[in-house]
């Protein structure tokens, strides 16, 4: 008997959070562990719904009819933050960001790349930079 199946194109999927975030019945599950992102897909989906396919930025998901298939997993290595080392982004996501954001905006005013830093470190770097002058003057007040 034919069932409604999830077909995911492994080559185009970038491993973002869209499909798992929009699935109204939580059939698609995403987890980040030990530097790897794991997305668990159901083999079949009987819901009258196209949310995941519509949400996918790469149009990597199709809902097709076919023979029953088992659940499957896609895994993505996470890129470590260049400052703190915490893995935070898939190579696919990074690639997409690199293509979407104009080159001149990918580095800061000092020519350093921010795109390879995790959001937390971006905040820290911004803070450190902003605090620099004040840090110097405040160190001088202690007597």
């Amino acid at each position, binding site marked *: 008997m034919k069932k409604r199946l999830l077909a995911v194109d492994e080559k185009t999927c970038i491993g973002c959070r869209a499909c798992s975030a929009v699935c109204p019945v939580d059939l698609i599950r995403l987890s980040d562990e030990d530097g790897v992102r794991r997305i668990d897909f159901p083999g079949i989906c009987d819901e009258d719904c196209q949310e995941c396919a519509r949400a996918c930025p790469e149009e990597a998901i199709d809902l097709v009819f076919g023979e029953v298939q088992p659940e499957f997993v896609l895994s993505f290595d996470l890129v470590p933050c260049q400052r703190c080392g915490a893995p935070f982004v898939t190579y696919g996501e990074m690639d997409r960001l690199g293509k979407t954001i104009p080159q001149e905006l990918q580095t800061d005013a000092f020519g350093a790349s921010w795109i390879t830093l995790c959001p937390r470190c971006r905040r820290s770097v911004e803070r450190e930079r902003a605090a620099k002058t004040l840090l110097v003057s405040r160190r001088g007040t202690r*007597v």
Partner: protein
Amino acid sequence: MANESLVPTICPYCGVGCGFYVALEDGQEPRIEYMPDHPVNEGALCPKGNAALEVLGHPERLRHPLKKTEDGWAEISWEEALDLVSEKLKEALEAHGPHTIGFLGSAKVTNEENYIFQKMARLLGISNVDNCARLCHSPTIYGLERAFGLVGVTNPFPDLANSRCILVIGSNLAENHPIVARWILKAKDRGATVIVVDPRLTPTAWLADQHLQIDPGTDVALLNGMMRVILKEGLADTEFVTRQTVGFEDLVGSLEEYTPEKVAEIAGVSAAGIVKAARSYARSPASSIVYSMGITQHAVGTDNVTACANLALICGQVGRPGAGLYPLRGQNNVQGACDMGMLPDFYPGGRRIDDPGVVEDVEEAWGASHLPTAPGLTAVEMTEAAYDGDLRILYVVGEDPINSGPNTDRAREALERLEFMVVQDIFMTETAQMADLVLPAALWAEKEGTFTSTERRVQRIRRAADPPGDAREDLWIFSQVAERLGLGFHYAGPDDVLTEINRVLPSYGGVTRERLASPGGLIWPCPDPGHPGTPILHTEGFSTPDGRGRIVPVEYKPPAEVTDQEYPLVLTTGRVVLHYNAGSMTRRSPSLAGRVPELFVEINPHDAKKLEIEEGDPVAVTTARGRILARADLTERVGPGVVFLPFHFPDTNRLTTDVLDPVAKIPEFKVAACRIGRG
């Protein structure tokens, strides 16, 4: 917005007295709306103010009177609860006398409620009445009473902006009274110099042009050192000293040995820094001193306050715009509780209990006779008396002495020895858990009345919500107990009580309900209904009998507990911006507790390295009184040799010493010797 009503109120946290509105909208949770036309906070609120409504409908609020039984807490009726309180009081009065009973009032409840509570005590002959001012600013009460003849901040906060030099000593106001930082920054905008004296590099110290990072407990040495510089360099205001003060000659002689070099050695700061600070303060046309518990919470707290007053007096930096002394008080109504006579040695209006004329006045006002004529026990002394079996009954309102007092383990033992303890509060505090009877009270937004902020500013609070369950206003509870004791209280409500306060307290004579309608209220002394209030004190001389300020020399004494081989580090305690005092409200406030969820201890990275402690490690902090666990926070906020614990979590005061200031009876919370090890 549609169907929205805005109920003006005053923040229930610190003593700054910020105004805001409780916005009520049909079917919505009450929320805060800012009050830009309030003269002190101009709409701004600190994080605690923003979170003030989080305790309102809190699931842990006390909802019914609870009696302790063998099977745990039993809900009982108000009738039964009130009968029990009055019977216990009657029994003890008849069998053992009023000196075996203690009443702890609250700097959190209204003026009207404190007034009634102390009146009830005194009509019963009980003079053991006190409030938490004992633990924060009692040295201010005795120090400023002696120096200026009147206890209170001398100038309003907005007037800080007129200062050209602000000396902040022992106050981390940026965290504990953030709105005061606003006015200090406005002064800086106009070119003022800011000097911060603190053993810690606090956010307040960030605002300083000069940060004197003294060793804990060396304030008198520093202040004496500054005064010596001022005298030697001829910077004293001799005209003011001659005209307005007494005691100057004694001071001159007492300062000789406090040379900058010697003070530098005692306090751990540079001699040049002392000289510079002294010159800045004395030379500026209008200087102010802002201090808080870093001055008061010492065995020499009264000396510290006196030294601050001396400095202001010899430089004539008081009694003018921009020139004042600001003891920043911690509780929303601690000034009011003290004004109302919730102190063992003062009747309402700051009038001494051992002055026969005062007793006569109060007896006439109350239509009473045989009122107490001698001071009773202070808060910490009550705990001591309970330990010795001399105090049998304790009535605690809105305080948590187990968490807020020193040496917790001994305090717990003392309260266990009481025959009967009744606690009236909004949450089941650690102290309430030890009570025989717990009475559920309404909180500030659920009742009407007045608070007096640290500026002496009397402001109205208004009812914006109903108390949960059977919880009742403190005033109703007191009136019910008083009625059962045959005291004949017939107050229809807080307005009736305020009318009596207008009549009994000279400085509150003109502080009537009608006049408190607009934002900002009135600043006492305000003796009659036509009086505009007195924002700046001592403009025409001091409130002492001869109108002159008292200069009283004080000598530096080292802290009661010094470090040794066993306890090599100095432990100091204090507050953080996201929590409040014993924490019974802020630890239940998700937006505050979520940001600082647990006890931590600040350790200088230099010390931590020697102790092989890393950031976030659980460590044990041990003093002669006990051992507790805390998470290590490695930070340069404390210098080497000093560690800091916030006191908002139950364990901190298990470590603090109960050595008291001999005059003010405040414990030395700010200095103890400790050691740190792996947890």
